[in-house]
Structures are given as structure tokens and as C-alpha cells.
């Protein structure tokens, strides 16, 4: 009896992860996941054929730019939009949310269950994408890249990228889950969040902290010096120490999820009547 809540959450995860993984509506998320893998594979193949070669340092710099420019600003951002905003919005569109609302499950647990299901999917997709992309980008270096990964800063960098990827999924996931509770068209909250995130460098210190990118940027392992015009893809933020960045982002995500839970408790089944 005392594990009822656990059974309920695992029940929701069990139903949701399959739906989310196999969602036809989310085919483009897979494209966003595979794009950097494909790009880095091509980079590796081109370099192997001797058309152009970089040093290990250059490859790690290229990946840093790719990670910040693509993964954080596009891939994970829009991927999480596709995955998390669908958790409630998708059920509304398919008129199946009432099955959940009619159970004796606390709505707060429903939010947690759905969030965890989305998080599992997002982590599997984007952690794999980031790890494979990182491995592929320097693969053409052969032994030097292996040495960089095993005994150099490579392993540490990869761990940091994976940590930032996970935190990005948590942060953007929470934001888009709550957006999906209220707004039918996910592009509207996505545009608002994106503008907010890119305004971050210009915001007052307190407002900067109500942002996902503020915490993530501080945790990326390689600091970039990006020349124009690519610098527009990189958000400059005041650095936050890791001890603040990780719990800070988790606190922001928890607050957003708490708001989602309160909203879910008050939610009604409308289905657009």
C-alpha cells in the first residue's frame, strides 16, 4: 500500500515512454538528433580522406562550437519542445487525457510521471547524439584522439557535455511541459523562450538566473572565442560557478514543474469545445 505512488508513476512512465519514442508526430526530433551525428561522420570521413585535417585541439574547439551553437540552441531546445510540450498537449489533441484525470492519481504525480517519461526519451536521444558526435569528430585523429579521450582532457570534456545535455533536457523539458499545458501551438512558447534565452546577456543579474542557458553556459568545458558572424549563435552570459549552476538549474526546473503540478490540478478537460 505504501508504494502506491511509485506504482502510479511507473505506470505513467510505462505508458508514456513508448508513445513518446514511437510518436509519428515527433519524426523531426529524430532528424535533430541524427543531424550532428551525420555531420560529424562526414567531417571524420572527409578528414580521413586527407582533404582537410585539424589538430585534436581544433576538433575539440569545433565540437564546443557545435555543442553550444547546435545542441543547446537548436537540437535540445527544439527536441525538448517536441517531446515535452506533447506530453499534455498531445493527449488533449488525441482526446485521451481524461483517462488519466479519472484515476485516483494525484495530478502532481501525473506531472512527475510524464516529465520523467519525457526525460528518459530526451536523455536517451540527446546523450547518445552528443556522445557519438563527440567521439566521431576526432575519430580521424586515430591514436591521438584515443589518447585525448582516455588520458587527456577528452573524458572530462565528454562528461561535462553529457552533464550539460542532461541539465538542458531537465530545464527545457520542464519549461515545455508547462507550456504544453496551456498553449496548443508549441512554436509560440518556443519563440518566447528562445527570445528570452538570447536576451540573457542583456538582462539584469536577477533575471539572468531565471533562464536555462545562464546555468548551462557556465558548465560547458571549452570556452569559445567565436568570430562573427557565428558569434550570434553563442550566448554570452556571466559565468556562474558549478556549485551554483547545477543546483540553480534544478531549482528553476523544480519551480517550473511545481507550477505545472498546480496547473494540472486545476486543469479541466476541454478538448476544444
Amino acid at each position, binding site marked *: 500500500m505504501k508504494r502506491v505512488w511509485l506504482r502510479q508513476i511507473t505506470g505513467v512512465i510505462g505508458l508514456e515512454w513508448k508513445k513518446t519514442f514511437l510518436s509519428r508526430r515527433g519524426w523531426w526530433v529524430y532528424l535533430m538528433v541524427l543531424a550532428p551525428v551525420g555531420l560529424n561522420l562526414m567531417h571524420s570521413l572527409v578528414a580521413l580522406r586527407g582533404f582537410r585535417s585539424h589538430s585534436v585541439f581544433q576538433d575539440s574547439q569545433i565540437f564546443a562550437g557545435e555543442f553550444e551553437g547546435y545542441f543547446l540552441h537548436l537540437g535540445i531546445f527544439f527536441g525538448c519542445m517536441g517531446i515535452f510540450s506533447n506530453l499534455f498537449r498531445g493527449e488533449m489533441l488525441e482526446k485521451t487525457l481524461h483517462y488519466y484525470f479519472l*484515476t485516483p492519481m494525484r495530478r502532481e504525480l501525473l506531472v512527475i510521471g510524464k516529465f520523467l517519461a519525457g526525460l528518459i526519451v530526451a536523455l536517451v536521444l540527446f546523450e547518445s547524439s552528443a556522445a557519438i558526435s563527440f567521439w566521431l569528430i576526432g575519430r580521424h585523429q586515430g591514436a591521438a584522439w584515443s589518447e585525448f579521450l582516455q588520458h587527456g582532457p577528452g573524458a572530462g570534456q565528454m562528461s561535462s557535455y553529457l552533464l550539460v545535455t542532461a541539465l538542458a533536457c531537465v530545464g527545457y523539458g520542464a519549461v515545455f511541459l508547462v507550456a504544453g499545458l496551456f498553449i496548443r501551438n508549441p512554436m509560440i512558447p518556443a519563440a518566447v523562450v528562445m527570445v528570452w534565452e538570447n536576451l540573457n546577456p542583456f538582462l539584469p543579474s536577477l533575471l539572468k538566473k531565471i533562464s536555462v542557458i545562464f546555468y548551462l553556459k557556465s558548465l560547458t568545458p571549452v570556452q569559445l572565442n567565436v568570430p562573427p558572424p557565428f558569434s550570434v549563435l553563442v550566448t554570452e552570459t556571466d559565468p556562474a560557478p558549478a556549485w551554483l549552476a547545477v543546483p540553480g538549474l534544478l531549482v528553476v526546473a523544480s519551480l517550473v514543474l511545481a507550477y505545472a503540478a498546480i496547473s494540472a490540478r486545476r486543469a479541466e478537460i476541454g478538448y476544444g469545445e
Partner: protein
Amino acid sequence: MSNRLITFGEVSRFYGEVLGINRVNLAIPPGITSLVGPNGSGKTTLMNLMTGLIRPTRGDIRVLGVRPDEPEKLGPLIGYCAQFDNFPKGLTGYQFLYSFLRIRGMNDAECEERTRTALATVNLAEAAQRPVAAYSKGMRQRIKLAQAIAHDPQIVVLDEPLNGLDPMARAETIELFQEWGGKGRHVIVSSHILHEVDRISDQVILLSHGYVVAEGQIQGVRSEVKDQPMQILIRCDQPNALAARLFLQDHVVEAKIHPDGKGILLRTTDADQFYLMLNRIVLETGMEVESVAPADDDVNSVYQYLIGGEGGTT
């Protein structure tokens, strides 16, 4: 006693400017209660309110003493078969029932047993491992019913549950309703199939334009409709003589000889007076009366008197 009732106290629900239901007062006892009314009369709104899927704009609702906005308390009490013919994607019938029992917090063994029982109850055991998406309309309706009853709720709310069922399945489903109602559960049904509503209902609630027009046992409701003369069919061996006597009475509005010549269809404003008089005529004339039965105390007639139109499928 109120803990055995579903009560609505001055309940109104508006969708923006649009009226869902207005100032509804109800106390629904156990048994089969049918919600009858044209499209847009407020039947689904009433059901969604009592299941907690929407909240009232004004007023108070209690479901066996529980507020519908407390899903943790209401969930075990209630099962709802909604009108929406939609299901979570990619599930078989078995997985559909099992998953939502799991979300109710039941353990594996309990989920399994209840899933099998519910599937057997609606005769879907053989189709259990087939995807719900491949089910026929009738099977989808039955799997929704199974989902509504799988956790053995005290209240079953069914929005148009007979839609899409073939006559055999319809008869079996009605039998189920009667069984549940007989066990002292609340079975709340909305249906357009009025002659079946008539057959199964312990009480009816007639709705029109968001208002409760009448409620109670159908005969009681009919007798309250004073402005419509009662129709009574009398089968006897001397219909002409009976008609002649009846025409002398003030309360008789119309007396029509039955097409087969063996009875009269009477319209009277005072049924009690008529019954007393019929006794006298029989004693005086020795007329043989085969049967006397009200001809318009069914849901369809009451629906036409109170709401108008054809009512529904009869």
C-alpha cells in the same frame, strides 16, 4: 443518506458566454438513471461535472459525499465511459486496461486479475491481445465499458454507451446495467435510444437548453405534465358503446376507436376520474375489458411533451 446520493446544489456551468447547465438541483439515488435531452441540452456537461473533468462555475456537487475536485477520493468511486472514441496509441485491449489499473496504483497480480475479469465481462477476452486501433466500433465501445468498470466502481457514468453496438451486444450491455443497478450501484446513462432508456431506467432526468425540465420515475414525471391529456388504451368487446358513454364526460378530450375495432384510444385530462367511471360502466353494462393501459407514460412521449420534437431513436 447524502453519502449514498449524487447531489447538485444550484449548479451552473458556463463555457465563456455559452450556457452548459444552469441552476441544476438534483439528488440522484442508486439505480439506473437516464439523462435524456437533445444535443446541447447539457447531458455531457452534467456527466463531466460529476466525474470532476470540469468544474462548476457556481454551486456545489457531492458524489457520495466526495467533492469531484478531489481525484484521489473520487477516482476509486467512479468509472466513466466517455463519448470520445479515442484511446492511447499502440496499446492492445489488455494493455489498455492493465495500464490504467496500474496508474490507479494496483499491484501486478491485481491488475492482471481485474483486466481479465473486465475483458470477460464485456466478451472481449479473445480479442484482448489485438490492438485497440484494429477493433470495430462495437468492440471499442465495449473496451471503453470494460475500462470504466475494471476497478469495480460504485458509480458508473456512461455517455451514449449503446452507440455502435449491435442488437445482441446492446441487449447484453443493458443486462449488465441492470445487474449493476440491481446491486445498488449508481448507473448514470445518457442515450438517444429512448425505448431502451424506458426499459432500463429506474429514474430519468430530462434536460433541455441546460435546464432540468423534469426528473424522477417516468410515470411520476408523466402525471406531472398536466397540460397534456393522458392517453389510455382500453381493449374491450364494446368500444362503440364505451365511446358513447365516455363522450358525455367533461374530462374526456378525445376517444378514438382502435383500427382493429376492438378498443379505444382515449385522451383525458383526469385519469383518476376515468378509472372510477370505467369501473361503473363495466358493472352496469357487463362489458368485457381485456386491458387498460396508459399509452403515453413512456420516455418518448414525455420527451415530446416537455421538450418537443421526435425525441430520439425509438
